[in-house]
């Protein structure tokens, strides 16, 4: 069983890496990019029967720093 955890910066938290990527895209001539936010994707290969609350606990305890980051869990079917 697989799950994907998306870790993203909360709204309002300055994202210097996203800004740098934005500048680089503009430098390559890609106009029309309004904003870029960078995050992380963490793929988990889990034992069958791992509950949603177990995964949420993993996120809260380690995978995301909830002071500055949000997380979203997506289970593979």
């Amino acid at each position: 069983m697989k799950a994907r955890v998306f870790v993203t910066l909360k709204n309002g938290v300055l994202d210097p890496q996203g800004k740098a990527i934005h500048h680089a895209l503009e430098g390559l001539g890609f106009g029309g990019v309004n904003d870029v936010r960078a995050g992380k994707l963490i793929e988990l290969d889990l034992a069958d029967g791992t509950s949603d609350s177990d995964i949420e606990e993993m996120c809260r305890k380690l995978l995301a720093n909830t002071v500055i980051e949000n997380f979203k869990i997506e289970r593979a079917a």
Partner: protein
Amino acid sequence: MQAAVIVFPGSNCDRDLAVAIRDVTGKAPAMVWHRESELPAGTDLIAIPGGFSYGDYLRSGAMAARSPIMKAVVEAAGKGVPVLGICNGFQVLTETGLLPGALMRNAGLHFVCRTVGLKVENSQSIFTARYQSGEQIGIPVAHHDGNFQADAETLDRLEGDGRVAFRYTEQVNGSARDIAGVLNAQGNVLGMMPHPERVIENAHGSTDGRRLFEGLLEAVA
């Protein structure tokens, strides 16, 4: 004084910190490996050094904060044992929740490595008692993730409660309100990005960091 320096895989300022503590206090600290689950009996100062624990994987300090020894550190901090976290040590302390906020990538994206100006904001703490309030000192920084951020309410509380220990006097890394070092509510935990252990003897070109350790010695002894 029986200090303990916590050592993680990837710590690289542990020896400098141990030398500074030994030089000022006259006693070598215990070097405690991250896999230990207990601190040496009688530990009355815990020092968490700079470096790149666990290669900064996931987030700076994130893995170190979940290592076995940190449970003992959090417990000791709760009992009032002084805890000093420098640079990566500061990142570890925010990740454990002993200190508020988070240390993010420097706003300018560059690794910053130079001596910076600091203003001592609070000289009432056990860490800063040998400084004058408002005094300006110079302490080296060397970090990529020193951009201290917290929500406005937390920042207001830190300022209102005198928990900002040091503030940069120049633009360094984009930290909210130029905060360079913060205290916990009880005042026994300090995290700071600058490295006081690098300026403790004349051969370093400055001794501006020495009084931090002298103050601790006086407070603990």
